[in-house]
């Protein structure tokens, strides 16, 4: 927090900066309100949650107990969490390991038909997922990948790779060409250029890309429920088991959702630290 204190900008009247800071706070709070309301609901009884907005109520942790209490055979939060963690971490790591060299080959040392390659990558996202599920489910069944973590890992690599390649390529475009050439003259191969020049400069971009991949993979529900309803079920499936078509469920759902997004909030917070400009400046000087 202290690092954020506003440096005095010459000639800028104090209140200008303070007002922008205040505006940012106001916007942040308004935008955050629905999430805050959800968190608030997670501490209410179903009765309090399903009636007109109540700010003052006696909080209870029962909803968290209901949600995490589980018996054998039922998908528990722990099991869903480990499944999701393994699937997301492995798939995003593979995506980044594939996307970084690919982006290098599309931005810094572009391959001959790099436009068509980029177009191909994005075109893979045009088929509506609701239709893609038919062949994917049948392939999964025939390859015996239904209800396995590996199945979803492979699928999430396919889902996130185009996003990662496109974003990284845009951030790699920003890298001053002469810095890469300088590293190359020093004898740095692909890995050398990556570690010494590209990663430091593009760090904000890489962090943003990795974060978005984690978010998409962590929150993916449709493929997960269709392919892994029994084993290898992920956190989103666990969250929706708390929805009920007969009876109130809002408070329970809020509690489940709060637990579900804690890891992603952490990922977001960690990624932000990488997104501070400092790094980029270091490399250019």
């Amino acid at each position, binding site marked *: 927090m202290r690092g954020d204190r506003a440096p005095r900008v010459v000639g800028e009247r104090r209140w200008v900066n303070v007002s922008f800071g205040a505006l940012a706070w106001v916007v942040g709070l308004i935008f955050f309100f629905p999430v805050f309301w959800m968190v608030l609901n997670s501490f209410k009884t179903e*009765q309090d949650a399903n009636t007109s907005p109540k700010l003052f109520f006696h909080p209870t942790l029962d909803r968290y107990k209901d949600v995490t209490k589980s018996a054998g*055979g039922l998908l528990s939060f722990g099991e869903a969490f480990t499944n999701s963690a393994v699937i997301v971490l492995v798939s995003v790591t593979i995506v980044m390991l594939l996307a970084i060299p690919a982006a290098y080959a599309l931005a810094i040392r572009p391959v001959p038909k790099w436009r068509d390659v980029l177009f191909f990558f994005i075109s893979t996202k045009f088929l509506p997922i609701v239709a893609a599920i038919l062949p994917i489910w049948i392939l999964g069944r025939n390859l015996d990948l239904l209800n*396995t973590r590996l199945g979803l890992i492979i699928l999430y690599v396919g889902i996130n790779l185009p996003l990662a390649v496109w974003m990284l390529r845009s951030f790699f475009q920003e890298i001053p060409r002469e810095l890469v050439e300088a590293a190359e003259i020093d004898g740095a191969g692909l890995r050398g250029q*990556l*570690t010494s020049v590209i*990663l430091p400069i593009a760090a904000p971009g890489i962090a943003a890309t990795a974060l978005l991949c984690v978010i998409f993979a962590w929150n993916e529900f449709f493929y997960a429920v269709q392919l892994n309803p029994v084993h290898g079920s992920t956190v989103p499936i666990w969250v929706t*088991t708390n929805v009920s*078509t007969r*009876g109130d*469920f809002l408070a329970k759902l809020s509690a489940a959702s709060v637990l579900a997004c804690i890891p992603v909030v952490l990922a977001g917070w960690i990624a932000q630290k990488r997104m501070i400009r400092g790094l980029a400046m270091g490399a250019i000087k």
Partner: protein
Amino acid sequence: MRGTRALSVSAALLAVVGVIATGCGGSDNTGQTSGGGGKSKGGSINVAIVDNPQMKDIAKLTPSLFTKRTGIKVNYTILDEGTLRQVTTRDVAAGGRQFDVAMIGPYEAPQFGKSGSLVDLTPMAQSDSAYRLGDIIPAVRNALSADGKMYAAPFYGESSFLMYRKDVLDKAGVKIPLHPTWDQVAAAARKVNTAKMAGICLRGKPGWGDLGASFTTVLNTFGGTWWSAKPDGSVDKAQVNTPAFRNALQFYVNLVHDAGEKDAANSSFNECLTQYKDSKVAMWYDATVAAGLLEASDSAVKGKNGYAFAPVEKTKAAGWLWTWALAIPKTSSKQDLAWQYISWATGPQYLKAAGTRIDGGWAALPPGTRKSTYEIPQYKKAAAAFAGPTLSAIAAAPISNPGTTKRPGLPGVQYVGIPQFQDVGNQCTQQFSAVIAGRTSVDSALGNCQDVASQVNS
């Protein structure tokens, strides 16, 4: 300095992959069997159930009451109604081999049974004395059978009836007979309707199982039908553009507009339950299971409710029949284990054992499947206020002749038992919901619905 920082980042990334890759490889296959937890004495089965409170209760009691006794481990997949239907239908119809037991309704049971996707449970049920097949309420058993073969064992049953606030209606001097007509109910609703408390809560959310269910019961009793039937009972012509259909829809829409609840076009069971318990509506026409929730200990309206049969117009009875039942897909390789589970889950012993172990107490037992449920003394006492009306409503459900004319897809009251009805029902209720929301007119909705319905040929 900057070089080392970047190096540490990529090194960390590679390390993570290394650890995970080995871990993943290892955990990957355990992932497959972790559910199985190794081969215990009885083996393990995969069961898909809907996420209603009664189903969650049995899922929580399974390890202690079933697995301990039989050694069969049960992996539950709990999903909401829509997702469950997607996953189970494909598994049963397209051979997914993911489930050994799937929870389906009376809409699917006869169809899947006839198409040979489900195991006929009748022989097993008859030979299993503990199951007491005769104890099942006839209407419920018939709804789940085709050509005399029972394809799913009922776990939960519900009909539809009218619930109303006795105190509010008495104050307004309104009397509701035990067998009311829709005109009487509409008049009462309009009489008690105030800004603070709406007259009646009727479903308006699109979906053949939401607005579709309530509206179809009204359609039947108003003498309308979705399709006419050929002599052999198969689909003939769409009847959406008939006066009877239009009257039913006009009546339904007018009643909702005049005395209906707020946010009607988005309301279904849950929304109406919330508004009724919150005293925002005086009357409510919906599933009988609601009574259990209204009379529950923590309900604000406990003891203030009157129950009446589903209102009629041109027919003697109009209440719908729905049951969630457990079926065994033909593709399952553990049909014997599956039946052992089904006979326990839907048998009489579970009902007796669960009474003291579930949160809601005796009143929260799965209703509407067995006559013996209604003879359990503790249940009769706990569910005194609604047990009688529920049982009689279910028994009276006219599943084989819900309307005034011949129609296809019997048995079935609030739906037409043909595969195409799901899609037609969804698209038409989307149009009707838009009418309730005031976005389209009755005529254009009926026109669109007629187009969709007439694409169906037997």
